[in-house]
């Protein structure tokens, strides 16, 4: 009476797709970062699902590392956004069209 792994992985894939769509469709820097978080979470889900399938713990350890890197990414990404907002009064990525200022 367990959920087959294909359902876990399909769930993860759909989650990833939605996150990717968010990254591609939105213009605000914050929405893009939110989409990236979704994609990372989907990847984690798939990792844990495969790890369970093979009875291996390593997958969970990798997910732990992924979470740490995700936290670092968010900290730097949001700091960048705040810095950009201070310069441009906007976080619309379409308006980030200069290489220097």
């Amino acid at each position, binding site marked *: 009476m367990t959920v087959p792994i294909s359902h876990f992985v399909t769930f993860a894939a759909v989650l990833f797709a939605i996150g990717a769509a968010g990254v591609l469709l939105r213009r605000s820097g914050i929405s893009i970062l939110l989409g990236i978080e979704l994609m990372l979470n989907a990847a984690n889900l798939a990792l844990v699902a495969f790890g369970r399938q093979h009875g291996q713990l390593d997958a969970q350890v990798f997910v732990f590392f992924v979470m740490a890197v995700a936290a670092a990414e968010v900290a730097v990404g949001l700091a960048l956004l705040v810095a950009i907002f201070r310069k441009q009064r906007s976080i619309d990525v*379409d308006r980030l069209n200069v290489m220097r200022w």
Partner: protein
Amino acid sequence: MTWFLVHFAEIVFYSLAAVALAGAVGVIAFRSPVHAALSLLGTFLAVAGVFVLMQAEFLAAVQVLVYAGGVMVLFLFVIMLVKARDIPDEPQYVRRLVPAAVGLGALLAALVGVGIWAASGGLPADGAALRMVAGAPLGNTEAVGWSLYRDYLLPFEVVSIVLLVAMIGAIVMGRKESGRGGAA
């Protein structure tokens, strides 16, 4: 009546998955960044629940601690700081490319589907290995800790340096007007 008890794991999984997917759709559908962030919070919590179902209790706790307790608070903080409420955030796409995007997406989905179908034979392995510590069943947290500090000590230290660098970087970028040459 015992049907409910027998299929408990499935019921929980499908409801959590539904919540998570609804939250994910909310993330890209809501205009207001606060609502998007909130619905992402819902997704994170549901994913933590799914982790518990997959016998990764430790990861579930870390997921709630890191994402719900840290990351999303940071997001909300920044959203309020930059007053993103006033910034319009329309979905954007080039209309000409929509058919191409749909086609490519379908192709990719088919590919992933075949991959999942091919990879997912058989029942999951016995979960006992997920809580083994040095040959004795102890618990998931203990097992992850054992693995983390013995087999993966070097990556663990590297990750701690990554976090340190990220922290310093965030502070440098977040400072008001750094003087010339201070942080270039």
